[in-house]
């Protein structure tokens, strides 16, 4: 028989305090006082023979929802320090700009240096792509890590902002100015490298791939943003992946379409570099990889049965094919490459193969995490 998990009062009150924190209208002092109030109420209810869990639920109910309490506390006139949200939003925008400038400085100067050292060669392009990937992965890891320990960083920032507002503003401005200057010079150097009059470059793909890197950069921020939105909406309990595992079918199709487009971008970059003549294969590779990734995510989902999950993974691929074919027949040359050479069959077969492997691996991981 499955055992009921033991009620953890500390964890339950922490979650409640988190909800208050996210409500945004309470100061630390308010939350501390309301926390004490809740504990007093729980103690009084426990004295009336209620269990700890019942006492907590009843005491929390009597205190009222975070919205109701927040609305009442929101009527108090407070000094400006409490209005943290606009500061956090602006800080987020500034950090984005500084990071973007910083990455542009590093990646553009590095590409120029690679080109000077290894000349007009595949090595230069591969090194550039490799560095771009490392920078992107580093960005995601650092930002996600920061989000997890965000409370400490936020506390530290606001403490210093309160103590020395002019100094903090000055440091941020200097960082922004320096990074903008760096990005400007780096962008200029990179443009000169590929300028058609100064140099006839045979490996022109470096230019395309380098630009795709910026697409990846913005997509990474979008992913980070979505992750934060999901965490905010679920009071910090969910990540983007755990939300997707339980998401409604419509959202899964949208997510699948986005994922396929990203894989298509990646495979365009990869094939331009490695086998520029085999253009069509990138569609099959992208379909397979995109469905593999979806399968890995949905392999752990318990909302839909296995056949439904399989169809949900294939649906965006079929939808993309329909859209592309429609666009191709309307605006491009006829007959379309999408209709010749068994394209549709190969395309859907690669997708199905990727989906099966992904679902299998996902289910295996789920099994392992259950037994562990």
């Amino acid at each position, binding site marked *: 028989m499955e055992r009921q998990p033991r009620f953890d009062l500390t964890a339950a009150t922490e979650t409640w305090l988190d909800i208050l924190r996210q409500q945004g209208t309470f100061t630390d*002092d*308010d939350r*501390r*006082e*309301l926390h*004490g*109030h809740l*504990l*007093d*109420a729980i*103690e009084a209810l426990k004295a009336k023979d209620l269990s700890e869990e019942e006492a907590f639920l009843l005491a929390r109910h*009597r*205190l*009222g929802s975070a919205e*109701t*309490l927040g*609305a*009442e*506390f929101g*009527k*108090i*006139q407070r000094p400006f320090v409490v209005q943290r949200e606009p500061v956090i939003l602006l800080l987020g925008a500034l950090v984005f700009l500084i990071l973007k400038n910083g990455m542009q400085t590093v990646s553009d100067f590095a590409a120029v240096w690679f080109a000077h050292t290894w000349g007009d060669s595949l090595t230069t392009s591969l090194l550039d792509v490799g560095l771009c990937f490392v920078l992107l992965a580093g960005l995601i890891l650092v930002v996600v890590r920061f989000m997890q320990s965000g409370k400490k960083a936020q506390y530290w920032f606001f403490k210093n902002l309160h103590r020395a507002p002019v100094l903090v503003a000055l440091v941020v401005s200097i960082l922004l100015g320096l990074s903008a200057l760096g990005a400007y010079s780096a962008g200029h150097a990179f443009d000169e490298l590929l300028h058609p009059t100064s140099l006839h470059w045979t490996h022109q793909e470096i230019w395309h791939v380098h630009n795709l890197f910026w697409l990846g950069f913005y997509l990474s921020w979008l992913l980070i943003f979505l992750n934060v939105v999901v965490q905010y909406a679920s009071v910090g309990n969910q990540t983007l992946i755990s939300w997707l595992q339980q998401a409604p079918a419509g959202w899964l199709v949208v997510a699948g379409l986005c994922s396929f487009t990203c894989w298509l971008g990646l495979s365009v970059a990869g094939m331009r570099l490695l086998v520029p003549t085999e253009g069509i294969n990138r569609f099959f590779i992208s379909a397979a990889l995109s469905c593999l990734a979806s399968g890995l995510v949905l392999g752990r989902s318990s909302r839909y049965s296995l056949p439904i999950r399989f169809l949900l993974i294939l649906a965006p691929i079929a939808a993309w094919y329909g859209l592309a074919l429609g666009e191709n027949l309307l605006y491009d040359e006829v007959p379309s490459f999408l209709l010749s050479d068994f394209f549709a069959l190969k395309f859907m077969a690669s997708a199905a193969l990727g989906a099966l492997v992904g679902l299998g691996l996902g289910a295996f991981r789920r099994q392992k995490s259950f037994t562990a």
Partner: protein
Amino acid sequence: MNDLTKELVAATSVPVVLAVLGRGESYGYDIIRQVRELSGGKLDFSEGTLYPVLRKLEERGLVETEWRKAENERQRKYYRLKDQGRATLETERTNWNAINNLLQNLWNANPALT
């Protein structure tokens, strides 16, 4: 008896809280408990009503606060009336007595003798 209206509860909140603190220092949970008991359960302040009132009194300089360890080893924020708070309590008492007298006179008024 009908429930007290929200407006009446809001109007009485300042004098009631000042009067409770006039009996001695106290903290949020205890103020609500005292009000409930002394009113025979008729006046039940919600936390969303009480704490903003306490903040307002603190801001106006009528009460002072102190975080202190209670007998159960937990930190509590205690509220104490300041001199200015006592003066305001006296004014409130005079005003409310005047209103009370007025209403008593109106409700128990003798019929006109003419």
